[in-house]
């Protein structure tokens, strides 16, 4: 996460327009996510229900963000999202792992924007949807390939052993066991399994508490001669 954040910052310094473009894209995406009028009406009833359902989910997430505004939620979200960004993988990497060329091409594709991410607090815990499906709980690094996302999911979730690929690629599938990929230890799972916005938020809160404690100590220090 740190390297990706440094790379992003370094790129931003040398090419400020890229950061501006990212922010513009983020604002446009926010409008698409939250405003039913920002995307065109679907051609089928089912499609329209799905479009409105997605927007409803995003509005639920917004309520969580608004609730956390006082402690820097949206700021942490924006910072953390960039920190999660990953470099793209190439098919050669997956061919080297033993996949066919077609499967390797599939695994090197970016993980779909609509694809489900890794839930840091598992869905089965039954937490409120506004938090559970928010960017504070769902890890889906921007730019990550399908294959790297499978690996990351295994690294941070012991109960995930593998999954199928596209139907057209069957009988090939992705198995962590076959690739020798193991879950991280507890600390690794907590660190790498938590989304950037959550880390930024918790870090921000810790800095706030630390700063407050420092401030109290400093004032008390001033009272004492």
């Amino acid at each position, binding site marked *: 996460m740190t390297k990706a954040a440094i790379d992003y910052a370094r790129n931003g310094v040398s090419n400020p327009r890229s950061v501006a473009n990212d922010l513009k894209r983020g604002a446009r995406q926010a409008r698409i996510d939250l405003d039913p009028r920002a995307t065109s009406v679907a051609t089928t009833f089912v499609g329209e229900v799905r479009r409105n359902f997605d927007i409803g989910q995003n509005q639920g997430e917004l309520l969580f963000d608004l609730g956390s505004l006082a402690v820097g939620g949206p700021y942490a979200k924006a910072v953390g999202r960039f920190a999660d960004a990953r470099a793209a993988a190439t098919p050669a990497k997956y061919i080297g792992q033993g996949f066919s060329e077609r499967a390797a091409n599939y695994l090197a594709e970016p993980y*779909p924007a609509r694809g489900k991410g890794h839930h840091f607090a598992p869905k089965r815990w*039954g937490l409120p949807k506004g938090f559970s499906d928010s960017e504070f709980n769902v890890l889906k690094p921007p730019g990550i390939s399908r294959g790297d996302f499978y690996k990351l999911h295994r690294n941070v979730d012991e109960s995930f052993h593998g*999954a*199928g690929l596209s139907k057209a690629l069957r009988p090939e599938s992705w198995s962590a066991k*076959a690739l020798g990929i193991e879950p991280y230890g507890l600390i690794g799972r907590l660190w790498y399994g938590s989304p950037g916005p959550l880390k930024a938020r918790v870090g921000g809160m810790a800095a706030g508490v630390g700063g407050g404690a420092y401030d109290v100590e400093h004032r008390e220090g001033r009272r004492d001669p």
Partner: protein
Amino acid sequence: MTLKTCAVFKSDIPSDQIDEEGFEQFGGLNLVEALSAMLVRRGYRVEPPWDGGLDGWMLNIRKDGRRYWLQVSEMDAVQRYLVCFDMSWVWLPRRARYEAFLQGLDEDLRKDGRFHEIVWLLKEQDPYELFPPASATVTP
């Protein structure tokens, strides 16, 4: 004795995975709907299935103040993988109830003609160790 809470099986229920451009959905919805119907017949309250992406399709199940969670995914073209979790807060008599839940599920799977070659596993066991994938080997 540790409970076996996961199962690998085959099913006549065809894969419902969707691989359309711009819309992808992992398979397993038809499977969890079939399981949901079985559990409802046993008196469990089952919420609508939830799409868990790579983890498959999920069900939240309740009975007598207890809550269970069930996930089903398509490992490949043939094998299906089921995982159960006991999410109850109340501890006792936890094991007996959970065991009854798992036994009922096993009975129903075996009675229903659409499920075959059911093998129950411990949570720690890797299903792909029993049924290795068609490609992808460990790189040196």
